[in-house]
Each structure stands twice: as structure tokens, then as C-alpha cells.
């Protein structure tokens, strides 16, 4: 599958370079069969439109500083947060191809061209418009569900947790090779089917400041990072194929949807057993998901809700190496309260089922809570005609009693933006976020969008 990940972007790049017209102007105007007077190139609805390439991108210059590192100024060194991001889009009357690259330090550190592509390609896909059916394939980031921040229905792409200074949801998402077919049944109704020929779990750091405590402990038991990495199963085969169906529609002024997904839980299950305890391996658990979501506006509040049943292959809960089935939910609301000040709250959690079945001391869920939940609160306001924006995001993990507080301040002048952001971790030092209390950060970036 890595071969596909490498070759598909190259193919798209070649396609983009061979189309006749090259332009960075605005998309064509209108939907008639005759070209608009000032714009005779590709228009969305024109039968005779010629393909055109648009190039957009961002140049980001920036650095991340970790205040705790300053305790030893001799070794303290800001991390490079600079990047060149390029979007190449070839757009014809019935096809659309996109290649999105992000060349940053991890890609520049690549030893081979293949490794470079692997790290630099954000997305690379081809989309065909066949009447009311749209078919797309390639490396893709898809967002399922209506929650504002990673609700339980958002299952298609794994997330990258190897750098917790990355706070953008889409940037944290890992593109996966997939085929997606969507069929527009009515103006606000569509059915989507997605097939992923392989699986990739959440990417967790195996070294450095962002390594989770559980993995650090496991590496200590196993004898090092290399042994741990070697123990991870190869999930790039068809044995790990995944797929799902999603139906979305609008009834009155309520958007709602239902979905089914058959895939793998993105977190590993580590197997220990007797004698010893001895390490038996790392596995990923298959599961079926049946879920529903809705979005509506009530009394000026934007409301969003998701609920899902994640049914693993341990319905009795007594298989120590398989996570129990569980329910997951997300409830969110937002509202503009005053002069564009927007408040957004999201409460999300999971409820483990068949909890009585957990008896083995080696069960992957031993000593973990039945009910886990967290609260996300975001407040932001744009001022001075959207030039100045302040934002504060807070994630509070109620189960671990830890938190992440992330304020930011940005100034936009035309196509340029200067942004100061920070992330402060705290709370239970053994918690998911509290463990990074000494990795709180401050980032300054200057971005030019073109």
C-alpha cells in the first residue's frame, strides 16, 4: 500500500503538468454552455470546458519554544515550525484532481525520495463527476459526522499524535488510500460508500517529548523502541480492509444521518500473559460501528449530536485482548453571544458495555473507567473587520482530571498572517494530557497564503 501512496501523487503531478492551461485566477463564473466574456476557461457546469490547473499554497515561517527547556539554556533549542504547503488542482468539466503537499522538517529529514513523498503528501486524489454520482480515489482525508471536533462518527482517518503542537483537526488527520462513491439522491440527501484497502492506527510517538507514558513503559519492558516498533503488526494488507456506508439528509431544518462502518479501533491492544507476565504481541481490534448524528439550530444555538455503538468481537467482555463493545457520544452547541464572540461547547464520552466480563489481570481495560468523558470549550472573536482574532480552546478530560489550554492571537493583513499560539498541559501527571505538563509550548508563525 505504501507503493500506492508513493505512486499516486506522482501520477497526479504528471497529469497536472500535462493539462494545457495553467492559471491561478478565480474559478470560472456561471453554468451556461457559452463561456463568460472575461473567462473562457473551465466552468463547473460547462460541457466543453478545458482542464485547467490552479496552484495555491502557503509559506509558513515559524518556531516552537518549550518554556521548560529554558531551565537549561545551553541545550534549549526552538523547534522549526516552517513549512511550504502547495495545492495543485487540475480541474476539468467532469474530473478534478488534487495534489496537496506539505514540505516541513519531517519530510526534509527523509533519507530517500520515497520517504520524502510519504511524509510530504497530505492528500492526492482524483474525483470523477458522473451525473449525480461522484467517484473519488486516492489518498484522502474524509470527515464523517457533525461534531465540531472529532466526534465518534469520524472514523475514516487515523490521527497523528506525534506532535501535540499541531492543533488543527485537518492537519492532524492522516490521509489514507481509499475509494469513495457518493450518490446525490436529493438536494440535501446523499449516500456515501467508502472502501479502505488497509488500515493505519493513530500515529503515537515512540520517542521524544510526545511519547505517551504507556508506550514508554512498554518499550522499557520490551527492551527499547526498536523492539516495540518491530512488534507492531503490518496492517497494510487486505486482511485489514475497512469499509462503510453513510446516509445524510435534511428533514425540515434538521440535518441528520446514519452510518455503518466495519473497521479497526485505532488504538492498539497490548497482549500480556503468563508466565511472567510475558509480552505476547500487539493487535488491533475489529469492530462494527452503527451510528447516527444530527445538526439543528434552536433558539439561535447551533446544536450538534452524535451517537454510536462500537461493537467489537468481545460481546461478553471477557476476552482480555479485545476491547469491550462500547457506546460513544458527542453533544455540542455554539452561539454568537456578543459582537461576533462565539462560544462553542462539546461534551463527548464513551460508556463501556459488558463491564462484568473483565476479570483477567491482563485485560487491556483492567483498571480503566467504565465511563470516560471530556469537555471541549472554544471561545473566539474576530475584531477589526476580521483582522484580529483571539481564540481560547480548552480540553478538559473529566476521567483523568487533566487539561490542555490553548490560547492564540492572530493578525491578518491581506494574504499575510502573524500568529502567536500556546499550549498549556496540566492536571493529573499520569493523565492523557497531564503527562505532558513539561511540554507546554509557545509557537510564533508568519504565514503568507497565495
Amino acid at each position: 500500500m505504501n507503493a500506492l501512496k508513493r505512486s499516486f501523487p506522482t501520477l497526479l503531478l504528471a497529469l497536472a503538468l500535462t493539462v494545457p492551461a495553467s492559471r491561478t485566477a478565480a474559478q470560472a463564473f456561471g453554468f451556461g454552455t457559452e463561456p463568460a466574456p472575461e473567462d473562457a476557461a473551465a466552468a463547473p457546469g460547462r460541457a466543453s470546458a478545458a482542464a485547467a490547473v490552479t496552484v495555491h499554497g502557503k509559506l509558513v515561517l515559524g518556531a516552537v519554544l518549550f518554556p521548560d527547556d529554558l531551565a537549561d539554556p545551553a541545550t534549549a533549542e526552538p523547534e522549526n515550525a516552517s513549512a511550504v504547503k502547495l495545492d495543485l488542482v487540475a480541474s476539468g468539466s467532469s474530473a478534478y484532481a488534487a495534489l496537496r503537499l506539505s514540505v516541513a522538517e519531517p519530510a526534509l529529514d527523509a533519507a530517500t525520495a520515497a520517504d520524502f513523498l510519504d511524509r510530504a503528501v497530505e492528500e492526492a486524489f482524483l474525483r470523477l463527476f458522473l451525473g449525480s454520482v461522484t467517484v473519488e480515489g486516492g489518498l484522502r482525508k474524509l470527515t464523517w459526522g457533525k461534531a465540531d471536533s472529532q466526534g465518534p462518527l469520524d472514523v475514516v482517518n487515523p490521527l497523528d499524535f506525534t506532535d501535540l503542537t499541531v492543533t488543527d483537526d485537518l492537519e492532524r488527520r492522516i490521509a489514507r488510500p481509499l475509494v469513495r462513491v457518493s450518490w446525490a439522491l436529493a438536494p440535501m440527501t446523499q449516500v456515501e460508500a467508502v472502501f479502505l484497502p488497509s488500515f493505519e492506527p493513530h500515529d503515537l510517538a515512540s520517542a521524544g517529548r510526545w511519547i505517551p507514558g504507556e508506550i514508554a513503559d512498554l518499550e522499557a519492558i520490551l527492551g527499547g523502541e526498536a523492539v516495540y516498533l518491530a512488534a507492531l503488526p503490518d496492517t497494510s494488507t487486505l486482511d485489514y480492509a475497512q469499509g462503510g456506508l453513510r446516509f445524510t439528509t435534511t428533514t425540515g431544518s434538521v440535518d441528520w444521518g446514519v452510518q455503518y462502518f466495519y473497521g479497526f479501533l485505532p488504538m492498539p491492544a497490548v497482549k500480556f500473559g503468563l508466565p511472567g507476565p510475558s509480552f505476547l504481541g500487539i493487535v488491533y481490534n475489529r469492530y462494527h460501528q452503527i451510528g447516527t448524528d444530527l445538526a439543528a439550530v434552536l433558539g439561535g444555538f447551533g446544536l450538534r449530536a452524535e451517537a454510536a455503538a462500537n461493537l467489537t468481537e468481545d460481546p461478553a467482555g471477557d476476552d482480555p485482548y479485545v476491547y469491550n463493545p462500547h457506546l460513544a457520544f458527542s453533544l455540542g452547541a455554539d452561539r454568537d453571544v456578543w459582537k461576533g464572540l462565539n462560544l462553542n461547547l462539546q461534551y463527548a464520552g464513551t460508556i463501556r458495555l459488558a463491564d462484568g466480563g473483565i476479570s483477567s489481570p491482563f485485560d487491556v481495560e483492567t483498571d480503566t473507567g467504565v465511563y470516560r468523558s471530556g469537555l471541549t470549550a472554544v471561545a473566539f472573536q474576530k475584531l477589526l473587520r476580521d483582522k484580529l482574532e483571539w481564540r481560547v480552546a480548552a480540553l478538559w478530560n473529566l476521567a483523568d482530571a487533566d487539561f490542555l489550554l490553548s490560547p492564540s492571537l492572530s493578525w491578518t493583513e491581506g494574504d499575510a498572517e502573524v500568529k502567536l499560539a500556546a499550549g498549556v498541559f496540566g492536571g493529573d501527571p499520569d493523565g492523557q494530557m497531564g503527562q505532558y505538563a513539561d511540554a507546554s509550548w509557545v509557537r510564533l508563525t508568519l504565514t503568507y497564503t497565495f
Partner: protein
Amino acid sequence: MKRIASAAAALALAVLAASAQDAQAIARAARDRIRADTVSTRARMIITDKGGNRTERLVDQYSAKVDGSDATMIVFQKPAGVTGTRFLTISNKDKPDDRWIFLPSLGKVRRISAGEGSGSFMGTDFSYDDVSLMDRDVDLDTFTLAREEPLDGKACWVLEARPKDPDYQYSRMLLWIGKSDSISWKIEMYDRRDVQVKVLTIDKVQDIQGRLSPVQTTVRSVQAGTSTVLYVDILKYDEKIPPSVFTVRFLETGRP
């Protein structure tokens, strides 16, 4: 005496009612002045800040009647930071409009509340509500005839419009509507404290396909001292817009 007072009060009420009815009719005539099955526009918005610095936005707007409702799709073209953003509004009778936005940075379609219509439209002096102000359903406001006066030599009715929705961003609006052309030449907007916050003026009209159409409109923010001039570069009436433009698929892909 009491009878005379009652009669006077009844007469005054009748005059007020007639005035309100006339005002509603004037507003309706202004609203329905341009009859077209569809409207397609490409507009440049030039924002001038307090210091005189100028920045530009480019947006396309497609409007049509879909299943009896007014539907508008706005496609953001420039600056590069907002390219690919699309915004769909479907008006509803007697309830807030349905609004959805697709942000490339979000990767999905998101329903937003009509209350968010008070936010700045792409950093301009227009709010999302202002963009559709000329098409605002007459029944959403209560109109009264405030006075009659000339504006730049044009005889105008001055109507006061009070939104029925108390959550609407303006508590009232004053409209200068030309007696001879039914054009809303000027609109003053007042916030909930009854302080004037903006003024919209139509600076230039042009005959397009037999319809006198605004091609240059300015909105000034009174307190901020900023302004945005909207130049209509392309305006077409009755051009075919596929109904599939007003769909979730178009929001996501930009394709009908």
C-alpha cells in the same frame, strides 16, 4: 366629547394602519422591483480601513427559486485564504433561514445559525445578513412610513423597518425608496441600543437586460470609520442555474 375622542383615536389608528399598509406595499414593490427567475453575479469588494489601506475580495453569487424557496449560493474566490469556501442560504417562510457553510479547512459542510448572520462577511463592512438585505422577505419586518423627502434630488419615501425577530442584528432600519423607481437608494441600520451602526448607499445603477440594477454599492461602518464598496463586475438575469447548485454536493465539491 368621549365619542369624539374615540372617533379621533379610531381615525388615527385607521390612518396608521393605512400608512403601515402603504409602507408594506412600498417595501414590497421595492423588494419585487426586479423580477428574474435567477440572478448570477460576480462582485469585487474593496475594503478601506480607517487609515485608507485597501484590500480586495471576490465572490460569486447565484440565486434562484428552488421548490418555492429563495436559494442563494455564494462562492468565495479571493483572497487565497478563503478560496473554496461556499455558503448556501435557503429562505423559509415564518422561520429563520437554513444556512450551511463549507470550509476547506474543516473538510465538511456545517449548518450555521441565522444568528451568525451578524458576523462580518469575509472581513468586509457587510454582514452575512447585509449581503441578502435587498432580497429580505418583506414579511420579516414591520414597515411604517416615517416621512417623505428628497435624496440627492430624487423624491423618496423614508420607511422604517422593524424586524419581527428580536434576535435580528438590527433593531430597525430606515430605507430611502425612490418614488419613481422603487430603488432602495439608502439604508441606515441601527443596533439594539438604537445607535446607527451602518449606512448602505447605492452609488450607481445600470440597465441590465431591461432592469435598472445596482452595480456599485457602499456600506460604511459609522463608528469604525471603515467602508466597503461592492462593484458588480458580472450580472446576469435568468441565466440557467442548475438546481443542483443549491445542494450539499455543490457545497462540498463546487460542482452542480
